[in-house]
């Protein structure tokens, strides 16, 4: 469909010249170049997605106006973005992600609304999900705000304990040899097992929830930090030993920065763990929160809303991770 392909179907090179002439000399050339620039994968997918809208619906009870609007908006903002930051890596990434989104949306719509081959309860149409997404915004925002406290305290506590403990245990050989088997036995304990104990031992339900998040996020961060210490090059450690750095300087100025890449990976997984456990943590006497909401709703087999809840969780994680990324870029600027 690209103009290149059009040319290729014409035999001979003088033919090509004719076509160019026909296209109007220089102006024509510019016009095709312009067209060519528009012929990117996301744009083509966008057109395909728009065409898909004209197929007849089999699930007839839904309006797709909002959904179509969203697609239009996505396509348009990409066009603008791509135009502004031409040739930029970010534009490329945005295009790739958008293509992925378009393909998923297209398949999803095709299989649900258009062909209706999937179970209606488990697989709502994208239009319905979008509708719900907008309708549930206040509830989800309130829920996210409610969860944020539990998350931040639990996850924060996990980071604040697991990183120093991991650094020290990783650095002191004897501790490392002792800590490793402990992680083997305690790491795989389902955090939900601790719930009854947390309820009994801790004064409030909220603290119990925080504890569940804490314990879930702790192990990934701890294990990654513990093993990360070992990835520091031997010659750097020798260098530090020769300088006779004190333990504190050693940990903060050498071990910590050297382990940072691993710590950040651990923190990423720990954050995912926190969100996974949010549903379990908020089982404990909560009446709000994103996790509570998802669990509550999935207990009622309200899958469209479950999908919406997960989308919201994704949004929250992405926002939190955005801050993380900034910090990471800054802290690891010495690499490469």
């Amino acid at each position, binding site marked *: 469909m690209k103009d290149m392909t059009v040319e290729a179907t014409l035999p001979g090179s003088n033919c090509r010249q004719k076509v160019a002439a026909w296209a109007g000399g220089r102006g024509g050339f510019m016009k095709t170049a312009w067209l060519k620039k528009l012929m990117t994968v996301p744009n083509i997918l966008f057109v395909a997605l728009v065409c898909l809208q004209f197929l007849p619906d089999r699930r007839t009870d839904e309006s797709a106006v909002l959904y179509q609007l969203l697609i239009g908006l996505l396509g348009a903002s990409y066009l603008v973005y791509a135009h502004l930051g031409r040739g930029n890596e970010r534009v490329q990434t945005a295009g790739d992600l958008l293509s992925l989104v378009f393909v998923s949306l297209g398949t999803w719509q095709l299989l649900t609304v258009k062909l209706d081959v999937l*179970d209606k*309860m*488990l697989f709502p149409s994208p239009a319905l999900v979008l509708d719900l997404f907008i309708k549930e915004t206040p509830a989800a925002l309130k829920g996210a705000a409610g969860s944020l406290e539990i998350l931040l305290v639990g996850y924060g506590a996990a980071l604040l304990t697991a990183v120093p403990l991991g650094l020290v245990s990783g650095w002191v050989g004897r501790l490392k040899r002792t800590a490793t088997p402990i992680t083997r036995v305690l790491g795989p304990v389902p955090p939900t097992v601790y*719930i*009854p104990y947390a*309820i*009994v031992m801790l004064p409030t*339900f909220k603290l119990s929830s925080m504890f569940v998040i804490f314990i879930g996020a702790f192990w990934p961060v701890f294990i990654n930090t513990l093993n990360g210490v070992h990835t520091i090059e031997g010659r750097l450690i020798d260098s530090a030993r020769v300088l006779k750095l004190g333990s504190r300087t050693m940990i903060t100025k050498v071990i910590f920065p050297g382990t940072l890449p691993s710590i950040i990976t651990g923190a990423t997984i720990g954050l995912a763990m926190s969100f996974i456990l949010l549903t379990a943590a908020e*089982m*404990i*006497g*909560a*009446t709000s929160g994103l996790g*509570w909401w998802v*669990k*509550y*709703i*999935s*207990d*009622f*087999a*309200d*899958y469209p809303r479950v999908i919406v809840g997960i989308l919201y969780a994704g949004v929250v994680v992405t926002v939190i991770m955005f801050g993380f990324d900034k910090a990471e870029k800054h802290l690891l600027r010495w690499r490469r």
Partner: protein
Amino acid sequence: GAADRELKRFNVGYLASTGHAMYFIAKEKGYFEQEGLDVQLFLFTNSGEGMNAITSGKLDAGSFGTAPPLLFIAKGADITIFGGQMSEGHGLVAKPEKAEQFKDLKNYRGKTIATVRLQTGDVVFRGGLHHTGIDWKKDVTIKELDSPGAVLEAVKKGSVDAGILWPPFLTLAEQQGLKVAKLSGDILSGHTCCRQVTLTSKLKANEADYVRFMRALIRAHAFYKTTPDETVDITSKYVKIDKAILKKDLYHGNLYLSPDPDKQMVIHFWDYMNDAEYISSAKKVDAYINTGTFRKALDGLIREYPNEKDYKALKAAFRA
């Protein structure tokens, strides 16, 4: 006249179930406050966690099915059942073409049935099969799943022949084209579901509070009996599903709300749990059921409102 007193803080645990409507009514209509209680409702999505909160004293009262408290009693927890919540309401769903054969428990032999372990209906069906002479361990393949949603999907997909569910999932299942083939009430008529439980020590120390708590629930029961539309509205705040389903469950289904502890049925259920091999306990469960609290509350209310028909009906049904 109780309103001017200092309100007493009272933590109550509940599940998001239509059957807990009396809590919601008593809270929303201010009955708890009028009785001098500052009730905080805590939602649990897992009966086990709720029971832990009861045994650790973090909750003053709560209702988490019938099986879990009985289990905890069998394990040696010192808790007391002092009130009722609802009864019956569970059922078995199957695809319409298969529904007919599930009418009779005898036909269950060789079938695959999905269930969520320890829910009331599960106990009733297993006990029922036991009484019919079917060894559910050998003759029936029971698939235990983790959620009613999973049971529903498994039945719809045909990986299992039938599934045991409870409100509102029975209605939901019907909406999805399944049929309710057999009700739990048909097997064990009037079997209890969620019971009000608390630590025995708490009940002994503050019995007056529990009487007032039961008074509020009895008043809520009367409200439920007389004001369907508002009941549905209130319930929908706590159980976020379609109001039509709620209404059907609350008023046109086979779910019966009642604050009566129903001692005999609890004892019966205890035996069923033994039959279903969920417990094997020679304990006398009578000792863990307190009917006095309910009676005191009911008697007091009848004295104050001698004309209230619902109170009289409850009194008539009550057996110590």
